[in-house]
């Protein structure tokens, strides 16, 4: 659905909404337990990030942080479709993608707080979450670079015959940088087992993607030019994402090469920090909030006969987990000052002369 917004200050911008039919995946063949896991995953991302925001407002999380409130269905759906040894490449907006691979909340939150029990012991921060153990090969803060790096991980999997698939997330704004175009061609030429996932939340930073991009679907419209199969999906419906992800990953695993998914979604908040996102028309924000992935999914579960009380239990368990993670993270020591001088080099040190 598209509603023209004539009074929008940024030109002929349109409100873009996903299809209003929220029941179309009700009958997908997804085991109920998988759906309950997906629901829990959505809740974990939502509640974790709300806590991260609170801690940011209390000035306990420093620097910056980029939340994906409202965009959780994409991380959850892909996380559920990936094999344990598959590889994730994310952006600075990577909290949810990291949790989706099974990384525990405490080290993620502790990293945001700059503590020694953080995922990188305070040397990475919110924008650089990495857990090799969980196949999370990093979040990358320079737009576009990681698409090329994801290709390398996919090439290595292909070379080693490991059967691993690499999933690489990025935003709509990223499609206008050169590395995106180099990476797509490169992946297609060598038929790499990589799935590129554009989380199209309609804005780059503070500018509508429609105002600065020559094509309507910034990722999908260009993918074909590089020989990639692509599809545009409703990124707010976890089942739609899960189904799409499963098919794309299987295809890559069969050796049929890369593909691209453009998932339409919306961030509830601003780009980063305390950005209120005022550059977005309020009608648009409201319309999308009606299509919040969590109530959408909850509604489906209820239609499928799940007890409301059972879902409430999940919500409460997640809330308790977030509280516990907060306590554990805050209780962490500050990093050992000596650690600032370790791990530049593979010998563990940082010395550049004898």
């Amino acid at each position, binding site marked *: 659905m598209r509603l023209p917004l004539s009074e929008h200050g940024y030109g002929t911008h349109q409100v873009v909404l996903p299809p209003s039919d929220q029941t179309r995946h009700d009958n997908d063949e997804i085991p109920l337990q998988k759906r309950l896991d997906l629901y829990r995953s959505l809740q974990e991302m939502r509640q974790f990030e709300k806590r991260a925001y609170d801690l940011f407002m209390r000035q306990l999380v420093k620097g910056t942080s980029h939340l994906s409130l409202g965009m959780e269905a994409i991380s959850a759906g892909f996380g559920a479709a990936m094999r344990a040894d598959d*590889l994730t490449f994310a952006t600075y907006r990577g909290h949810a993608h990291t949790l989706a691979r099974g990384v525990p909340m405490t080290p993620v939150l502790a990293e945001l707080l700059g503590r020694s029990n953080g995922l*990188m*012991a305070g*040397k*990475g921060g919110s924008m*650089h979450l*990495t*857990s*090799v153990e969980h196949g999370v*090969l*990093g979040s*990358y*803060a*320079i737009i576009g*670079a*990681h*698409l*090329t*790096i*994801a*290709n*390398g*991980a*996919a*090439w*290595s*999997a292909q*070379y*080693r015959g490991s059967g691993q698939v*690499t999933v690489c997330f990025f935003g709509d704004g990223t499609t206008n940088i*050169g*590395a995106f175009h*180099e*990476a797509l*061609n*490169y992946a297609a*030429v*060598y038929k790499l087992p990589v799935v590129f996932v554009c989380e199209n939340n309609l804005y780059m930073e503070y500018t509508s993607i429609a105002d600065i991009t020559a094509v309507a679907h910034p990722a999908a419209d260009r993918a074909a030019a590089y020989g990639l199969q692509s599809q545009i999906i409703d990124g707010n419906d976890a089942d739609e994402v899960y189904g799409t992800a499963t098919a794309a990953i299987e295809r890559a695993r069969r050796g049929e090469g890369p593909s691209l998914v453009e998932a339409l979604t919306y961030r509830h908040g601003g780009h980063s920090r305390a950005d209120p996102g005022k550059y977005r028309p309020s009608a648009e924000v409201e319309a999308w909030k009606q299509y919040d992935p969590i109530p959408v999914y909850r509604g489906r579960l209820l239609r499928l006969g799940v007890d409301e009380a059972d879902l409430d239990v999940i919500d409460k368990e997640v809330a308790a987990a977030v509280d516990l993670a907060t306590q554990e993270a805050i209780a962490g020591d500050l990093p050992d000052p000596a*650690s600032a001088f*370790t*791990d*530049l*080099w*593979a*010998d*563990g040190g*940082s*010395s*550049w*002369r*004898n």
Partner: protein
Amino acid sequence: MAELTYRDAVARGIAQEMRRDERVVMIGEDVAGAGGVFKTTVGLLDEFGPKRVIDTPISEQAILGAAMGAAMTGLRPVAEIMFSDFFAVCWDIVVNEIAKTRYMTNGQITIPLVIKTGNGGGLRFGAQHSQAIENWAMAVPGLKVVTPSTPRDVVGLMAAAVRSDDPVLFFEHKGLYSMKGEVPDGEIIDELGTAVVRRAGTDATILSLGLTVGRALDAAGQLAERGIQAEVIDVRSLVPLDTRTILGSLAKTGRLFTVEENPRLLGWGAEIASIAAEECFWDLDGPIQRITTPHIPLPSADSLEDLVLPSADVVATAVEKALQS
């Protein structure tokens, strides 16, 4: 012992490592079928096949991103950037990704990667194909930087670079590709971070790298005729830096000269001069002197390029003048 050109030594060094370790793979523009634009990868495709020696599109960011991602996940790639000037096109991947990732991930990710490239002037290619950029790389924490000056060292340092678990920028000097030299048979492995004294002397220490090693040696020959015994050091590796050899020589001679191809501002000689001034001031018998190109892009015409690249005559004159004053 075989006589090899510097360019053949590059292929020999890579082949030595590819034979030893299946994880070593080679990618770059024209490196497979054509054997490299400078013919530095001739024979690799025939011996190791298209799975391990791969021609890429002209996509410097994609090349280095792929090399990094592969290095993170179990391979040991050698990637070629045709001319070092083109690093400007993929500098983000080099500086922000390859160099920082190990540190930022608190050691979770190791990047055993070699990026080889044709560097430096002397071939009349003009300003966009002639720069010496090893000082750009030296300024970035997380990158190792080597520049061999002889065919033998090409093999030994290439082996060390491939076996290093850290990312190494391997600067081949374009002006040396056709130079011939003796290369011993069998496996050769050097150690990164080791400078070599190419000529012993007592009156002055001349530091040189890549192309300037030969010029410094020629200058030392001229100086010897005038009764000045100059010690010539081939720095070989800027990161890690062998300050022990360099400062040890300075302690003996009391005079330090650096001969570099970089434009005047912030070349590697400036860093070494500053270390010497900080740590060995009382060993110095006179001001440190840096012999560089002027702070200009390199011109193309023979007469102009020769004028601005440090020549043996310029080096000899500078040293002699300084010692007389």
